């Protein structure tokens, strides 16, 4: 058995992309398939550097369609397979992801959001929320973790493989270009030393024995003949998704229970939101902070509780209302009003959020 790169807990200073590569190795991922696109490239760079040392495989494909479909193939072969992409690559990858959704294949995808629409910028945005949560011609049977720190990139990359293989829904680590390239410290650890049991993969094809003699053949399709047949399958998927949603959903909240105004944000923007809220609370301003960590499923119950108590939700995001749509959908019928702070493709500072809060509170 090849050694692991991380043995005991240790603090490291890294970029986010490196963190994802290390976390994938530590999650016992077997193979990565990828196609170059900024700002996710160093995930591939570091995976390929480590691959021979730790018995891992890599295939650079001809495009993201292929990267997604080869990842689907890797999972079918019973390996922990993953890929990483961004922007226009994420657009292409929706096709293989929809096949994974239809066939409940536990692929893992790291998305480092860049500006959109189109080629836009290679730098940063939160504009791939809609695509990552509900892309493809389907119903969004996916699990999406939106990370805010390098520590979370590490924790949730490891968790994503477990979530995917436990529930058999495509699972995403949704980062962004800032997190991808930013340098900060984190603790890397061997998950097993912390009692995190790594879920073992299972093969869909190529199992031992001769099909039809020793075992039935493993045969899978995503085409249905009649409406009723598809309807039945999707009803069952929805039922299973609804059942696991409460245990999968995660959130972070601060003073949201006793504040008239609560700032709702996700990902790297929530760092600024948290800072602004903490400073204002220290100064005696009653303002709250709520951050969904899973954007799919949303932490609906907790968010509704907040929206039933607070008068106003200030939604801050680096997109024009992609998070806001998920929030509105979750809190339909609750009392709180919504004030936007939308900066598509641009970062949001604590000062901007603080100023906005002050202007709202008057």
């Amino acid at each position: 058995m090849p050694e692991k790169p991380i043995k005991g807990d240790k603090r490291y200073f890294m970029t986010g992309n490196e963190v994802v590569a290390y976390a994938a190795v530590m999650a016992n991922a077997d193979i990565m398939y990828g196609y170059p696109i900024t700002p996710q490239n160093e995930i591939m760079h570091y995976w390929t550097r480590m691959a021979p040392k730790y018995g891992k495989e890599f295939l650079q494909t001809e495009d993201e369609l292929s990267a997604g479909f080869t990842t689907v193939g890797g999972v079918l072969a019973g390996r922990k397979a993953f890929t990483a992409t961004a922007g226009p690559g994420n657009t292409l990858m929706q096709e293989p992801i929809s096949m994974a959704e239809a066939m409940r294949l536990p692929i893992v995808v790291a998305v480092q959001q860049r500006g959109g629409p189109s080629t836009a910028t290679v730098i940063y945005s939160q504009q791939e929320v809609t695509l990552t949560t509900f892309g493809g011609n389907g119903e969004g049977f996916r699990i999406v973790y939106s990370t805010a720190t390098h520590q979370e990139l590490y924790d949730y990359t490891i968790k994503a493989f477990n979530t995917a293989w436990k529930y058999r829904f495509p699972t995403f680590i949704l980062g962004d270009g800032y997190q991808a390239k930013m340098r900060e410290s984190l603790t890397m650890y061997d998950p097993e030393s912390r009692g995190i049991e790594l879920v073992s993969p299972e093969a869909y094809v190529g199992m031992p024995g001769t099909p039809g003699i020793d075992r039935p053949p493993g045969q899978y399709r995503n085409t249905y003949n009649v409406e009723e047949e598809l309807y039945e399958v999707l009803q069952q998927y929805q039922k299973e998704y609804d059942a696991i949603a409460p245990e999968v959903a995660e959130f972070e909240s601060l003073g949201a229970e006793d504040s008239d105004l609560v700032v709702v944000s996700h990902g790297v923007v929530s760092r600024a939101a948290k800072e602004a809220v903490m400073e204002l609370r220290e100064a005696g301003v009653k303002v709250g902070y709520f951050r969904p960590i899973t954007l799919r499923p949303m932490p609906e119950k907790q968010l509704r509780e907040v929206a039933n108590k607070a008068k106003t939700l200030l939604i801050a995001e680096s997109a024009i209302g992609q998070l806001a749509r998920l929030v509105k959908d979750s809190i339909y019928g609750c009392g709180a009003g919504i004030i936007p702070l939308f900066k598509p493709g641009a970062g949001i500072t604590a000062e901007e959020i603080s100023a906005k809060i002050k202007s709202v509170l008057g």
Partner: protein
Amino acid sequence: MRLNISSRIVEAYVGEYASGKSEVAVNRALMLSRLGRTVTLVDLDIVEPCYTLRPIKLELIAAGIQVLAWETRDTEGLGEAGNVIRAENRWALKRPGDIILDIGYGVGGSRTLNLLEGAGTDPDLRVVAVINASRPMTASIEDITGYVGELGNVNMLINNTHLGDETTADIVQEGARLVSGASVILDMPVLATTAAEEIAAIIGPKDCAGNQVWAIKRYMPQTFW
């Protein structure tokens, strides 16, 4: 044209997309069935098989018609549109009694009949081109003659001109005039003019060009395609 009641009737309905081939074929099958005749209705629509007949298949069977069409449930991949010919349909002409063939549209035209065993030698087979003069590609005598000329072997025309819910007797009569005009140039008879029951009642047993009028029911609005 007079139909000899005792003889075997074999009619293949061809024509433009959405010209009403299935509608006419279904009504024709029911018409013959009501006369106490043995009728087999065959779906030879290759581009959109079974979609048109599927919702009314049971109704047709209850009316005593034998229906040769895929059960959608049995046709893998028809969600992808799909086209597959049932082996049974290939031998349809060998069945006893009347045979009504619903041929889908396509550049193949009546050449789809090449897929049927015995189509080249069946003495009773009549290929009927269904014309709805409210369709843009068959809206004038010139359009109709040009279109029918491309269909391959055709023996008769049928005027199925209508405008859906907006159909009036005048629209049907105008279609009759155009189709009859084309029939002179093409040198082939007009089998009939079809009209929904309430319109047929206004027109009477013959249209303005002297063609017999078939009062039909519009089943296709119940179907999907």
